[in-house]
């Protein structure tokens, strides 16, 4: 399964997903209102230390932050412009620490373990006639559809290139939508033929 998951086992892999999510929620609640630069810098250092303790593969994952740098620069520039660079640094340290900490949870938790951990939270769906199992089915369906849609896009792109010699780009979107909807009709029929999606009453 495609994922940001670290295949190499670390000590954090052994911690149950529910505990990790709870810890993440607690840290984010505590860190949100704090405005002290030493505290936020300390949090960031602690998170970095956590990464080091997870090994080299985890540290390499810090590179995932790269697309965020322009945004960080803009943020810092605005705070500098308002004459409060310290506030900018606090905000930046908090964002960096929280993003890295949350990524650490994602890196060390398999998607199915995460799904199991949040399933109790989906129980209220039953009150409205929904079903947590329908959610699980929707998740699986969506993930399975992605490579299919890719193949569909590639096929459209190839035929466009055969006709024009150029890449199709946005012009393929309308035929893509039509074809994907046709695909979804077939999928829905196949699903119905196999007994349909799980319903709240039929658990």
């Amino acid at each position, binding site marked *: 399964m*495609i*994922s*940001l*998951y670290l295949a190499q086992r670390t000590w954090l892999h052994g911690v149950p997903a529910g505990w990790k999510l709870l810890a*993440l929620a607690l840290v*984010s609640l505590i860190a949100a209102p704090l405005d002290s630069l030493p505290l936020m810098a300390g949090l960031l250092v602690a998170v970095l230390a956590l990464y080091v303790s997870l090994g080299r593969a985890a540290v390499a994952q810090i590179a*995932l932050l790269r*697309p*965020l740098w322009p*945004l960080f620069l*803009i*943020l810092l520039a*605005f*705070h500098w412009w*308002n004459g409060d660079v310290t506030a900018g640094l606090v905000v930046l340290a908090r*964002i960096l620490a*929280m*993003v*890295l*900490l*949350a*990524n650490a949870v*994602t*890196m060390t*938790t*398999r*998607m199915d373990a*995460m*799904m199991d951990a*949040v399933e109790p939270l989906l129980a209220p769906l039953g009150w409205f006639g*929904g079903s947590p199992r*329908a959610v699980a089915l*929707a*998740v699986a*369906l*969506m*993930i399975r*559809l*992605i490579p299919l*849609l*890719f193949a569909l*896009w590639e096929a459209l792109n190839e035929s466009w290139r055969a006709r024009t010699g150029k890449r199709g*780009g*946005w012009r393929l979107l*309308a*035929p*893509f*939508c*039509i074809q*994907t*909807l*046709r*695909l*979804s009709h077939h*999928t*829905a029929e196949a*699903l*119905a033929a196999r007994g*349909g*999606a799980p319903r709240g009453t039929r658990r």
Partner: protein
Amino acid sequence: MKDRTLVQVALYAAIFAVLGLLPRFDLPFAAGVPITAQSMGAMLAGVMLGAWRGALAMVLLLFVVALGAPLLAGGRGGLGVFFSPSVGFFFGWIAVAFVSGWIMQALRKAPVFPAALLAAVFGGVVVMYAFGIAGMALVGGLSVMDATKACLIFIPGDAIKAVLVALIAQTVARGMPEALLSRNA
């Protein structure tokens, strides 16, 4: 929830993901500014599926991203993205899909192109930036004015995407009218 609804919700969540993973389009009129097609997915989900199903598709997408799938543009994903300053946009997608779908349904009798254009512009630009700017201000510690300035450069791109969504809706309405579920729900 009917089987068909479930599949359509999953489908539009998947389309959203695919739009983010495709190589970037060079949009016409954008003068070569590279634009990820992803936020189009939210407008598309609303315009095509209608308010509730569109919003559900976006909820499903964010749920799968939170579970750890790198489905946002540039291969981003996991829990980390929900702590970045762009988080307002991510939650905004739910509102974008709902509002564009709602407008599309309200204008069921109107011709497709103007209805879809209004739906996409209002949903994909006004609503999305309201959420995006609020998120930027809260997470980034900026005043609303500064956050607005920081987001301003992206608005032209999203306006172009809204036009594209309307063009797509019109083409789909011609090619497969029953596919425009916001019209026959």
